[in-house]
Structure formats: structure tokens, C-alpha cells
């Protein structure tokens, strides 16, 4: 019995005594999770400010002197890279993965606590390297978050010197950090589950995080490989990706490399990355919805299978990002087909969330509001994905604001909605206090409606043919004058939504000390993380004895039982006593 070997092994666990070992060089998964979360939210706020400055330029061109074309491109690049990798990946896997996995499967900690600590500090190093590029000569890279060669490393692109070097190094360091973390998450799920916790009794959050970790472990190497080769192209002058070309009127030393090769590598990482972000969000939102609707998740096994199938399919759809790069039409056909097939398991998940809500005892608390908001934003973002997955529709829409609207809806707003749901849901567990409900509802409505005010008009701009990544439109014949006030209104909405996040931050800080104290299991949840002897859970989580699991995580409103939830660690005998 492998699990006993790790979970109950007789080694001594010393509680860290000093402040430094407890909160700084901590090996406790909960502390590491909070370190990850705070760092990720901090860089996320930097990226949010960057997006605000982009919108200022787009909404009111030529009104702000400090935003020149170079600065604009640098804002675009850093905003995208930070949001996708340093915020979403780090917060969902490093933050929530770290906090939830051991608690939800009934383990005392990650399997390799030291490696876990190292993972966080390596991540912090990658963040510092990334932010350092704001302070070097030439500033951060402005190559676009996809970093396509040849322009990424040619002079003329902002930050082509130290900026891009730091970016590539930072990505490399991040991948090392993620690999250490990911190995930990996967091994912990496979090896440290407590007695009775079979794979099919795990909460969907764990399934999502587990599958996403495997995806990350297999997909990030592609980014590493392309970063290494690009770094060599830049520093040593090899021609892996760089074609023979003229730069600023001079013949470069590069010979016939292939920029398309980079695109393939990048998107072989880039598409699974979408699901590295989405799958944990899918899992978490399933648990939040089931808990606050007091109903078992509809089609649990289908949900698990859908997560696994989406994970597998995500590796064979990457070239749908490259339809305009030019490819054999049969390849385009293949990738369009796989892209549309991936919509099937995804739609199954959406239906199941809706069916879980159907005739549920819905409590419209803040986490539930954000979860329902997620169903809306994800459905809208997903449907535009069907448009873009088809080659003939994608070709005219490619590189327009339609694409910007699509991917912000599906992998920007949606995972953020789930993150907020998760923070409002688990805050009482982490701190023992509630977040303020009134502020939370205000935060939800302004964010939810505000994101629609931002991204719906972008779809329309895209249909008009407004290209993305442009510093300013100037006078362009095919774009009607009405696009200008529309852009201004998007900017106003974006500034409001950005400012609204201050409410959230204030709520977070205020509730930490002044929030209403929560009872041990405030939402009446069944999963193990709420069943610890102390809330918030102490070092090693479970006191003397590990919990024993008797059931799946979704026994809500079971007929004939007086209490509307049965925790996973409650045995049949105890349930008998609850029967009326």
C-alpha cells in the first residue's frame, strides 16, 4: 500500500519554530501557496496597469506624451506575457494547486516539500528577471507576447537588446520553477492520497490541477527549447530561426533559418498553455458550483473524462494559431477538425455546470455569482472560438480585435472569474474570516458587466477589420469614424474595471484583520479541506490521524439525511445516525 509509505510514515515532523523558517524559507505547502499567490497577484496588478495605459493610447490617441509607439508595444508584450504565464499559471497551479492538493486528498504536505520551496524561490527569481527588464537600456521587449522571430531580436524592435534577453532568461527560469512544482503536484496526487481516496473520489479541482500539471510538464519544454534556440540566435549568431535578411539596410550574418519553426514550437507550448490555465479553473468552478447549489455535480465521471480528453486533444490543435502563416491546406483541415472536436468535451462541461444548477438550492453568495459569471463569459468566449477555429473564417478575422475579444473572454476574463470565485470561497479556510459580502457583490457586478462593456464591442471592431497591436489607426478608409468613440468607450470601461479591482484589494486587506469570523465549515462543503481539526489548518494539516475517506466529494442533499451534506470522511455508521 503505497500511500501509507508517504502519508503515515513514522518520520518526525518538526513544526518550524522561527519566523524565518515559518514564513520565509517555509516548506509548508500552505505558506508556499500564499507566497505564490501574493507574488502572482502583484505582477498581475503591474500587468493590469500596463493594459490601462494601452487602452489610454487606443481610446484617446495622441493625448498622452509618455506613450510613444515603442512604449505601446512594450506594454502589449509585457501585459500578455505576465498575465498568461506569471499570473494565471502561477496563481492557479502554484497558488491554488499548492494549497488545495494536499488538503483535498488528505495528505500532510506535498511529497517533496524542499523542492516545493525551491520552486517558489525560483519563480520569484523569474519574476525579478522579468521586471528587471523595465529598468535596462532600451526597456523591456516589445516583440508581442508571442516573441516571433526575426523581429523579436532585430534592432528596430523595442528592447531588442537586454529586454529580450531578460525575457528569454526569465522564461527559462520560470520553466525550471514550474517543473519542480509540477513534478510535486503530479507525484503528490498519485502517491499521497489518504485511505479511501480513490482517483474517482477526488474533487474535480484536484483533477483539473493534476491534468493541467501534466500538460504543463509536457508543454513547457517546447517553450524552453524555443527560448534556448532564440537566445543562441541572438547571443551567438546561430541561424536556427533567423532567415537571411537585411536589417536597417545592412545584410545580417544570419543564413536561411526558419521563423515558422519557432511558431510551431511556440504554439506547441502555447495551445496547451490555454488549457493549463483553463483546466484548473474548470475543476475549481465545478466544486464551487456544487457546494453553493447544494447539489452533486452533474455527470462527475463525464467531467473527469472531459478534463482528460481536453488535455489530450490540446496537444494536436496548435497550428490553428498559424492559419495565416501559410501551411498545406490539408494541415489546415486537420487542425480545424481537431479544434472543433475539442469543443465537444468542453460543451459537455458547460452543460453539466448548467444542469448542476438546474433545480439546485442555489445560494447567490459571492463565489457563486462569480461562478455563474464564469459560465457566461466562458460560453461567449468559447463560441467565438468556433468561428476562429475554421480556416476560412479565421483568415479575414486574424489579427483583428475579434481575436482580442475572443481570447480575453475565454482565457482572460473566465479564469479570472474563477480565481475570484475561488478566493471568495476559500478565504475563510485560509484566514478564518469572511471577505466582506457587500464589497464582494459590488466587485462582482462592476467586473462582470464591465468586462462585457470592454470585450463585446471589440468583436464588432474586429468585424470592421480594425487590426490589433497597432499604436494608432490614423485615418484609414475602411474604418468608419464611429470606431473612434467606440474605442474611447472601451477605454473608459477598462479604466473603471481596472479601478474596481482596488475594491477587491481593499476588501482582501481589510477582511484579513477586521472581517467577520467564520465558523469551521461555513459553506457546508463535503471535501476534505474543510474537515481539518483546526480552521485555518495548522502545520501538517491533520493533527494526530489522517482522515479516512468513505465517499465521493459530492454528497449534497442526500435524501433521508437530516444534514444537507455528508463530508467525505463520514462513515456509513455516522450517516445512519443522521437519518431521520
Amino acid at each position, binding site marked *: 500500500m503505497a500511500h501509507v*509509505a508517504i502519508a503515515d510514515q513514522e518520520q518526525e515532523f518538526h513544526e518550524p519554530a522561527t519566523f524565518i523558517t515559518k514564513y520565509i524559507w517555509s516548506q509548508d505547502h500552505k505558506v508556499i501557496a500564499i507566497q505564490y499567490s501574493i507574488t502572482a497577484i502583484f505582477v498581475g496588478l503591474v500587468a493590469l496597469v500596463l493594459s490601462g495605459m494601452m487602452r489610454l493610447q487606443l481610446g484617446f490617441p495622441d493625448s498622452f506624451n509618455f506613450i510613444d509607439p515603442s512604449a505601446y508595444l512594450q506594454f502589449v508584450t509585457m501585459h500578455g506575457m505576465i498575465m498568461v504565464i506569471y499570473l494565471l499559471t502561477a496563481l492557479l497551479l502554484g497558488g491554488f494547486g499548492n494549497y488545495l492538493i494536499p488538503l483535498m486528498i488528505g495528505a500532510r504536505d506535498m511529497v517533496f516539500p524542499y523542492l516545493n520551496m525551491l520552486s517558489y524561490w525560483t519563480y520569484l527569481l523569474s519574476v525579478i528577471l522579468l521586471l528587471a527588464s523595465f529598468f535596462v537600456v532600451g526597456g523591456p521587449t516589445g516583440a508581442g507576447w508571442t516573441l516571433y522571430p526575426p523581429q523579436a531580436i532585430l534592432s528596430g524592435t523595442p528592447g531588442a537588446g537586454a529586454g529580450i534577453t531578460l525575457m528569454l532568461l526569465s522564461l527559462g527560469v520560470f520553466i525550471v520553477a514550474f517543473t519542480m512544482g509540477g513534478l510535486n503536484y503530479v507525484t503528490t496526487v498519485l*502517491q499521497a492520497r489518504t485511505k479511501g481516496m*480513490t482517483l474517482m473520489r477526488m474533487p474535480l479541482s484536484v483533477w483539473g490541477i493534476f491534468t493541467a500539471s501534466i500538460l504543463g510538464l*509536457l508543454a513547457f519544454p517546447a517553450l524552453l527549447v524555443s527560448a534556448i534556440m532564440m537566445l543562441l540566435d541572438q547571443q551567438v549568431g546561430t541561424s536556427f530561426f533567423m532567415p537571411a535578411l537585411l536589417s536597417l539596410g545592412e545584410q545580417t550574418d544570419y543564413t536561411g533559418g526558419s521563423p515558422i519553426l519557432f511558431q510551431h514550437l511556440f504554439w506547441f507550448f502555447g495551445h496547451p498553455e490555454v488549457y493549463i490555465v483553463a483546466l484548473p479553473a474548470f475543476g475549481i468552478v465545478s466544486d464551487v458550483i456544487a457546494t453553493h447549489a447544494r447539489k452533486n455535480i452533474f455527470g462527475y465521471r463525464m467531467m473527469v473524462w472531459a478534463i482528460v480528453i481536453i488535455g489530450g486533444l490540446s496537444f494536436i490543435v496548435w497550428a490553428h494559431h498559424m492559419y495565416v502563416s501559410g501551411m498545406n491546406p490539408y494541415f489546415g483541415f486537420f487542425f480545424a477538425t481537431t479544434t472543433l472536436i475539442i469543443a465537444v468535451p468542453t460543451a459537455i462541461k458547460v452543460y453539466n455546470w448548467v444542469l448542476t444548477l438546474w433545480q439546485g438550492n442555489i445560494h447567490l453568495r459571492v463565489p457563486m455569482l462569480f461562478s455563474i459569471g464564469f459560465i457566461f463569459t466562458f460560453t461567449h468566449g468559447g463560441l467565438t472560438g468556433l468561428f476562429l477555429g475554421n480556416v476560412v473564417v479565421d483568415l479575414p478575422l486574424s489579427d483583428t480585435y475579434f481575436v482580442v475579444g475572443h481570447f480575453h473572454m475565454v482565457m482572460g476574463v473566465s479564469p479570472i472569474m474563477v480565481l475570484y470565485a475561488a478566493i471568495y470561497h476559500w478565504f475563510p479556510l485560509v484566514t478564518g474570516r469572511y471577505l466582506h459580502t457587500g464589497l464582494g457583490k459590488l466587485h462582482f457586478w462592476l467586473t462582470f458587466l464591465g468586462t462585457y462593456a470592454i470585450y463585446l464591442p471589440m468583436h464588432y471592431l474586429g468585424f470592421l477589420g480594425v487590426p490589433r497591436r497597432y499604436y494608432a489607426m490614423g485615418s484609414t478608409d475602411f474604418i468608419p469614424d464611429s470606431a473612434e468613440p467606440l474605442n474611447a468607450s472601451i477605454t473608459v470601461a477598462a479604466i473603471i474595471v481596472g479601478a474596481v479591482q482596488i475594491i477587491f484589494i481593499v476588501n482582501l486587506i481589510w477582511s484579513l484583520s477586521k472581517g467577520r469570523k467564520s465558523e469551521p465549515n461555513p459553506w457546508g462543503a463535503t471535501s476534505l479541506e474543510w474537515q481539518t481539526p483546526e480552521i485555518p489548518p495548522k502545520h501538517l494539516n491533520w493533527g494526530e490521524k489522517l482522515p479516512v475517506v468513505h465517499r465521493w466529494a*459530492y454528497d449534497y442533499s442526500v435524501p433521508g439525511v437530516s444534514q444537507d451534506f455528508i463530508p467525505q470522511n463520514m*462513515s456509513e455508521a455516522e450517516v445512519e445516525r443522521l437519518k431521520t
Partner: protein
Amino acid sequence: MLRNLLEKPWLPQPDNVVGGNAAVAVPTSAERIALRFFLAIVGVIFFLFTITFLSRSQYPDFQALAGQPWQPLSNPWQLWLNTVCLLLACASLQWAVSASGKDKADFTRMGIRFAQLFAILFIVAQYLLWQKLHGLGFFVASNPANSYFYLFTGIHALHLLGGIIALARVSLKFRQNGSLPKLAANISLCATYWHFLFVIWLLLFALLASSPETYRTLAAMCGFLR
């Protein structure tokens, strides 16, 4: 795994089920699971490098390092020498594994030392080969085939260096508390990693010393022909 995934957790279940990992017949340590995933990652890295290599090999400026008599890897006696070196390193480590299983501390120690010695020798020999190629005018950036040669051997050497450091940690622990049964598992993990790197090296060797015709065939199989 499949049986686990077909479970129906929502049906009433007998309470004596303890499940968890009890279903796994052969207990596998967490370290070994993690190592397997790590090997998968390393495998993906080299796989992707190889794929880009095959694609890049079909561009007109690519001049393979083997195939014609005057090209440096057409008679790769030096690479064979290095390969033997790495093979000896792996064999010594395997010897250490079997010695540690039989609780023979001296042989284990000797096996580990030989393994480290041969592995370092391999890296030094690879470096000498780099210098020789460089001396012959095959610079890193002068041709993509050269770039790939330095890239492949360099990344492989870095991975081996990681393996040497891991093994050094094990032998340090060995010196400190000397309890064999506890360390036997660690040595065996190191051995698995080294064997894996040896196999990777064989594949890289075969790839690097192949002729342009072979590249063309492989590239055709991948659909890379231009």
C-alpha cells in the same frame, strides 16, 4: 488506471473499501514516479530539438557533418571513444546498484566512484571534441549543422552534469551515515537516469553522424520535405 477511471463513486459503496493507492499492486516510490515524469520531460526536450533539426536539415544552407569523407563526423572514432566512456560509467553505476542490493558497501563506493570518473571523462572528451571541431573551422554559427552539434552535445552534457551532482549528493550521504538499504533506492534512481541519458546519447550520436540522405528520408517521414 482504466479501472480506476471507470469507478462509479456516486453509487452506495461497501464501507470496507479503503481504496486509495491500495489498488496498486507493486508499490512504487514517490521518487521513482517523479523521476519517470522527469525522464518524460527530458525526452520531450530532446524530441523537440530533434524535430527542429530534421526540419532545419532540409534548408539549402544546411551542410551535414557526415556523409562525405572530408567531413569531420564521417569517421567518428572520437565519438565512439566517448560512447564507450559513457557506457563504462553506466556499467559502473549498475554495478554499484547490484552491490548495494547485496549490502556490499565497498563495491558500492567503488562503483559510484568509477561512474563519476567515467562520466566526467566523457564530458571532458566531449569538450576536447568541441575544441577540435572549432580548430577545424566548424564554428558554432557558421552552419546550422554545427550549431545543432554544439547544442545537442551541450544540452546532453548539462543533463549529465545534473546527474553527476545528484550522484555526488548520494555519495555524500553515504559517507555521512553509511546506511546502505536506505541509499540503495537513491543509487538505483541515479542509475535509471544515467541509463536514460546513455540511450539519449546513442540516439543523438546516430542522428549527428548520419548522412544527408538519411536526414532526407527522416524528414520525408515527418512531412518536412520542401
